[in-house]
């Protein structure tokens, strides 16, 4: 009976075609706070129908990714490391250098660190779409503005 068994979503409760699409402009937003709200919406933790084993979240589009902001001296001091697997194969870049090379990777790296790591987490990560510049090719999905509740997300100038 419905009231004594905890609800578990059926296949038609999480079809990708009927999920919400959100769009957020990253210019002058603090990186970590933005990534946190994005990760919450992608994972579906803001919905009462949240289920940890099922992808109930929404899609999020990030535009103006190259204008994301960080506080303090992170622009020159925050390091992004990657390792090729071979000895001596560690490459270290600063935030600034990475932003000039591949600006999308900054937001992707931040959000990936906040999503669960595992098969489901990797699938969730594909629901994040990051673009430099102000437009995106997803007009057909009619994305709405991402509701942000963090008051300190906008960089104070």
């Amino acid at each position, binding site marked *: 009976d*419905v*009231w004594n068994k*905890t*609800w578990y979503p059926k296949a038609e409760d999480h079809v990708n075609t009927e999920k919400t699409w959100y769009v957020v402009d990253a210019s002058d937003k603090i990186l970590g706070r933005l990534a946190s709200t994005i990760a919450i919406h992608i994972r579906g*933790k*803001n*919905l*009462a*129908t*949240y*289920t*940890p084993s099922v992808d109930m979240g929404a899609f999020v589009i990030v535009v103006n990714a190259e204008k994301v902001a960080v*506080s*303090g001296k992170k622009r020159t001091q925050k390091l992004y490391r990657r390792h090729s697997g071979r000895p001596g194969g560690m490459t270290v870049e600063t935030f600034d250098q990475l932003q000039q090379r591949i600006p999308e990777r900054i937001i992707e790296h931040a959000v990936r660190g906040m999503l669960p790591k595992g098969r489901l987490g990797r699938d969730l990560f594909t629901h994040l779409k990051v673009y430099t510049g102000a437009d995106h090719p997803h007009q057909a999905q009619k994305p709405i503005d991402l509701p942000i509740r963090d008051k*300190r997300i906008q960089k*104070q100038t």
Partner: protein
Amino acid sequence: MNKKEVFKLAKGFRGRAKNCIRIARERVEKALQYSYRDRRNKKRDMRSLWIERINAGTRVHGVNYGNFMHGLVKENIQLNRKVLSELSMHEPYSFKALVDVSRTAFPGNKNMTPAPKKEGLAILV
């Protein structure tokens, strides 16, 4: 025959654990231990899932889980978390009524002083 029972319980296991008795016996023992432990863990996990769902449902209405439950306790509403999570998913209007009841009983700690505003050069930190 014990081997037959072991293989029956080893259905769906990976590799030799479903076919070779010495490996299957170990894996089946482990599986039975895990299922004993998890019958107790399931109760904890379910409650934690209900709490997460209730939290999400109340935050939509601007109240967090802790303040919501405190308000319900004050009003002596003894609905358990399972039922509250089902209400938050399937009966949104009734759930909103509950949130309002809880909010009148315990308006939350709005008396907190907000974080001090940074001025001047402190903004950069």
